[in-house]
């Protein structure tokens, strides 16, 4: 699964993407020309110092935000200039999100939270309920369907979030410091689920601060000041994995 064979299908292609923020009179360039190709089945860690633009990049990849300059092709389709409704559609159908702070809807139960993306796809209630229950079971929460998020531990909440991210069978799962709020034990559980998902062929991109976690992923991208500092795959996708930790220094 961690094969680096370059003849896999590219899912994400970024070309010279820049993101600028206007802060009063100062123009902040959060991203300064990122080019990146993500292939189907990729399992990527994004590393980098705080404020280097990791979250900004992930938000653009997740179609929550749009690049100021540059093109973004998702499954061959240019999404950098899509209208808001179409972006919503892409998010709902092709992308799954996992956040550091879980971001479950407090007044909904576990199963209802997992159903949210299905609801916006217009799936009939009975069907979506069955699917959500099945996913909850997969992340080990089959007996907690009617619990509220506040009745769950952080690790359990994050597992609900994973089930929710999987609900629409997305092309890519994006996780922004998914284990940041968790102790090492439950963080490990989450990463185990990620590993399994990748083994099953899912494409995952996760932001982390933890070098050890980055070790688990076949591909590591280091950001520095809004640019790609190092990518274990390189431009040709052939960078040797052995060099990845050295390059961080």
């Amino acid at each position, binding site marked *: 699964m961690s094969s680096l064979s370059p003849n896999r299908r590219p899912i994400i292609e970024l070309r010279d993407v820049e993101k600028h923020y206007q802060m009063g009179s100062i123009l902040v360039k959060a991203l300064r020309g990122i080019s990146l190709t993500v292939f189907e089945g990729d399992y990527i860690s994004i590393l980098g110092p705080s404020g280097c633009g990791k979250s900004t990049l992930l*938000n653009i990849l*997740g179609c*929550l*935000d749009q690049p100021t300059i540059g093109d973004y092709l998702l499954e061959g389709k240019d999404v950098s200039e899509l209208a*808001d*409704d179409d972006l*919503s*559609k892409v*998010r*709902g*159908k092709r992308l799954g*999100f996992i*956040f550091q702070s879980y*971001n*479950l*809807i*407090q007044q909904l139960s576990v199963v209802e939270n997992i159903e*949210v*993306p299905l609801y*916006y*796809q217009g799936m009939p209630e009975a069907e979506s309920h069955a699917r959500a229950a099945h996913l909850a079971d997969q992340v080990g929460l089959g007996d907690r369907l009617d619990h509220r998020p506040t009745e769950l531990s952080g690790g359990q909440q994050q597992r609900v979030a994973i089930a*929710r991210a999987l609900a*629409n069978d997305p092309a890519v799962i994006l996780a922004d410091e998914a284990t940041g709020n968790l102790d090492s034990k439950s963080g490990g559980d989450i990463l185990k689920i990620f590993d399994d998902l990748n083994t099953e062929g899912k494409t995952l991109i996760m932001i982390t601060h933890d070098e050890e976690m980055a070790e688990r992923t076949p591909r590591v991208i280091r950001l520095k000041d809004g640019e790609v500092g190092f990518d274990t795959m390189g431009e040709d996708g052939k960078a040797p994995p052995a060099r990845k930790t050295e390059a961080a220094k």
Partner: protein
Amino acid sequence: MGIVFGVASVIAMLAIGEGASYEAQQQIKNLGSQNIILTSEKPTNTKTAGEQERSLVLEYGITYRDLDQIRATIPGVEIAVPGRRIKDFLWHQSLSVDATLLGTVPWYPEMRNRRLLKGRFFTQIEMKGRDPVCVINEELARKLFPLSSPVGKEIRLQRNYFRVVGIIETKASGADSDQLGGKGDATVKKPSGDESELPMEAMIPLSTLIDRFGEVLFKYRSGSFEAEKVDFHEVTIKIGDADQVVPAAEAIRHILKRNHEDVDYKMTVPLELLRRAERTKQIFNIVLGSIAAISLLVGGIGIMNIMLATVTERTREIGIRRAMGAKQRDIVMQFLIETILLSGAGGLIGVVVGMAVPLIIERFANMMTITQIWAPTLAFSISVLTGVIFGIYPAIRAAGMNPVDALRHE
């Protein structure tokens, strides 16, 4: 909440307004909408003169001449019911009551929409024969005959006896009470205190009255004699065509003005009163409408504030939903529905309160109210509409947020 008050006041006020105008209409209908009622009044400005020349006969009011002219000049005058009144004590055995003796014509009940409760009214033949018969109203019957049935018995006024042939329903006739309650009070010799509430009346043929009491009426009241000559105290004119009532009233007003130097008469046109009542109701409704509108506005702004607070509170939820594929439209719908449910609930409470208030008023204030189905329906729709209007801004604001910012909220 403002919505509750708004809706409740709309319903309650409509019910009260409707009830009041119904009552007014009913009262006016009792007078007969095609009628014009003329009543004689002692002129105000002759009062001092009357005091000085106590022995002289005071002449005032509607005259034969007036009636002749009215009959001659106004087309479509159907029937005129002339009436003459004497206010004095009526006796039955040892019981006496201060009452009004009304000389009138056999078709009086029909003209003034008054029902006979017992016996019959006097007839044309009795009128011709100047028979000493009378019909008394229920109130008088109760006072003079507390135990027995009055029909067939006799009542006495001064030295004249009248046989009771029937009992007629008591009705506070609008024209009379109007007259007595108004400036009439100052001039009428001795307005019997309870007159304004329920008048005590005995009716006899006009011919009998003229025959027995003559043209000049003598009264012994408050220790002095008074004499007055009044041709008619009360005349009811019926206009055949309802459309002609107002012009005819105008013409009659003209004739009377020419014939009378002093204003010693009063004209009551029920149809005009009806018009006036309708206008009053209109004004009433406008005032109530504005009150309701203001409270709904206040309620709406309240709802808007609640929703704006909710939106801020739930910014993160909005971000999550947007990330999960919700379109702006979906968010707008969600918040709009919530607002409508909120205002709809308020509206529902308002409907319940608004329908209860008239019932309470009816019970305790003894006032008639009418709640029509359309009033709560209208009020409820308005409340929901208020929800839509004031919910749309927070909803759009919620949906317009950037998903990234929404997710980062708090």
